[in-house]
């Protein structure tokens, strides 16, 4: 491995808490959701439904805190998508990683996501999770549709969208967990997400556009 490593404080307390909380909630929601969808048998249908509803509603509250955090801290800039170095990233995961090449976009405090991560996490936070929340909340409120003036809704359409989102999340989860093993040690990224301290190569140049705080990210 090339170069020396230096340890930087990359993930704040709230960020780590939110990460693991949403991880836990998503796993519970996936398990209970697929039980309701009749693929698993863990808690029993009735209990799975109760847990799913409870955890789903808890998630809505937790997500509201995340939205507050991401905007008040300016961290939202970390999610702005870019195509710069995208090809390098794809080449790295498809080829370079097998050759022991260095990561093309090392993490920095103000550029913690590489271009692939930015795109993925933006899709997740701004699209997939909201879709799951909206379809889930409406699904849960089935009996109140008339009272909410939403009698036009179709449970089947909602259920299909919600299930599609669940499959997407499960696929993401698998790839996401695997990607944590691609650090300089197998558990390096997981350790960083627990402690907040990430090991990065010393002296890696960070271009101006990568810095989240910069508004001239397009150069």
């Amino acid at each position: 491995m090339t170069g020396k490593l230096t340890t930087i404080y990359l993930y704040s307390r709230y960020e780590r808490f939110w990460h693991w909380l949403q991880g836990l909630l998503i796993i519970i929601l996936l398990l209970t959701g697929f039980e309701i969808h009749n693929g698993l048998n863990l808690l029993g249908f009735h209990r799975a439904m109760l847990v799913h509803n409870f955890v789903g509603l808890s998630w809505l509250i937790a997500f509201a805190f995340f939205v507050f955090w991401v905007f008040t801290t300016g961290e939202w800039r970390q999610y702005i998508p870019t195509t710069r170095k995208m090809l390098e990233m794809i080449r790295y995961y498809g080829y370079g990683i097998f050759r022991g090449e260095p990561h093309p976009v090392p993490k920095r405090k103000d550029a913690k996501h590489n271009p692939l991560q930015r795109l993925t996490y933006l899709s997740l936070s701004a699209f997939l999770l909201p879709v799951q929340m909206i379809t889930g909340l409406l699904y849960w409120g089935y009996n109140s549709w008339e009272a909410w003036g939403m009698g036009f809704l179709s449970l089947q359409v909602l259920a299909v969208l919600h299930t599609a989102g669940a499959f997407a999340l499960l696929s993401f989860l698998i790839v996401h967990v695997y990607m944590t093993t691609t650090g300089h040690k197998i558990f390096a990224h997981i350790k960083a997400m627990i402690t907040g301290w990430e090991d990065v190569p010393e002296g890696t140049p960070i271009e101006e556009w990568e810095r989240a705080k910069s508004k001239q990210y397009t150069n």
Partner: protein
Amino acid sequence: MKKIFRNKLYFLAVLLIVIGGLVCAGAGMADEDREENDLAVSPGRALARKAAKPQQGWTTTDHSKHPALQGEFRKGAEITAACLSCHSEAESQLHTTIHWTWVGYTDESGKRLGKAGDALNNFCLSANSMQDKGCMACHPSWDGRKEVVNCLACHGQKNINFGEAFEDYNAFADSDDPDEKEIAEEIQANVLAAAQSIGRPTRQNCGECHFKGGGGDGVKHGDLDTSLTKPNKDLDVHMGVDGQNFECTRCHTTLEHNIAGRIYSKPAFTERKSLIEDDLTPKITCESCHGSTPHEPGHKANDHSDKVACQSCHIPSFARVNPTKMSWDWSQSGKLKDGKPYKEVGPLGKEDYLSIKGRMTWAKDVKPEYRWFDGSMKTLTVKDMIDPATRVAVSAPVGDQGDPRSRIFPFKVHQGRQPYDKVHKALLAPLLSGKEGYWATLDWPSALAKGQAALGVPFSGEYDFVESSYYLPTTHMVAPKQNVVGCIECHVRTDGRLASITEVYLPGRDRLNLLDTLGWVAVLGSLLGVTLHGLGRVFTGGRKEE
């Protein structure tokens, strides 16, 4: 290093709080299991207990002391006259009720809905305008003749055979033989005791006819048979003698001898109201006493009550003690053994074959079939056209998914095969009992001609048999809550109880197969992809080992 350690501690603490919260939530959910042990009473039960305090059997009269009931009675009509000497309006009230007329009403097209009218079923088919005397045993009059009201049919608390008693008494009463005189006095004492033993109708009274609808115990209704004369709570939580011990009239409330309940296509009720909303509302619905959201607040079952009838979950099966008849094939009737009509008894101790009735099947502990139901039934009459190519619905529930008054409701479906007129394309109403009835002659053309004539409807002379079905709503035999139908009996991929209810998306049952296929392909593809990628890293040694 210390900092890292502190962060770990912090993280653990947060995780503990989250897990703690989830465990507490889980414990809250476990309440339902605890509820089985019955410490908490659900709101619906609490409401019902307030509405229906244990009935105090009190009255201001003792019929054995009434002068009118001290005389000598030589025939039923004399007892009735004694009743009416005080209860002056009772007879005229009863005469207007369906219990007396056997006609619910006449519809716009002149069809008389009722067993004495044009209505049909797929059991004994028709009462032929009361010409079929076999049916009259259940008419609340004396001697099977619609002449004088028999008050004791419903109000008598001593069950004696009045027909025999009067016949014997009249034979011996005027005799000079002291032995015969003594017998006559004994008979008269029994008659008198029965006439003086008066009360509100009991399960025994109502059951004498309603438990034996269709000509025998449990023939017609799957949820009404003689096991309800003295049921336990397992069989019916309301009528159980070890519980509330409700009589029929506790729910089938009465107004001037009109008893609440469904009358042919007319529903038993038009509004779902509780006694809290209207204290004079009939108690005929579950909601009358239990309200429309009877379960614990937040319980999912409360969300079901707008579409699923209480009965659908709370009556897991009918005919739980006595068997009920499930099918009746009239076309098999008429076979003879050694030139004589015969019977065969099946495994449940019930007759599977009778030469006079045909082949029939019986079943016990039967899961209902579920249909949308707005409380009214569509019943065929002898005047309705049928399509002999299909199974004819002699009676079928009315209702659909889009109607806010309709609920998914449990039914017993009795399958039949019964005669129809090949020319007029209508079901036929043969005369069954009596000297000229089919049961005596085993001659279809003659029995059909006589039965149709009694109803004043034409018969072409050409007949055949057609498959039919008859729906009977299931509303009695409400089980204790621990026996209630569980979620997964409907929310299950295949063979669920609601397999026939296809108009709604049912979580756990329904899915978009394409989506599930694509979804699992994506998930397995992801797994395969990362596995290959990981193996690639291992074998190329590209993993960044220090």
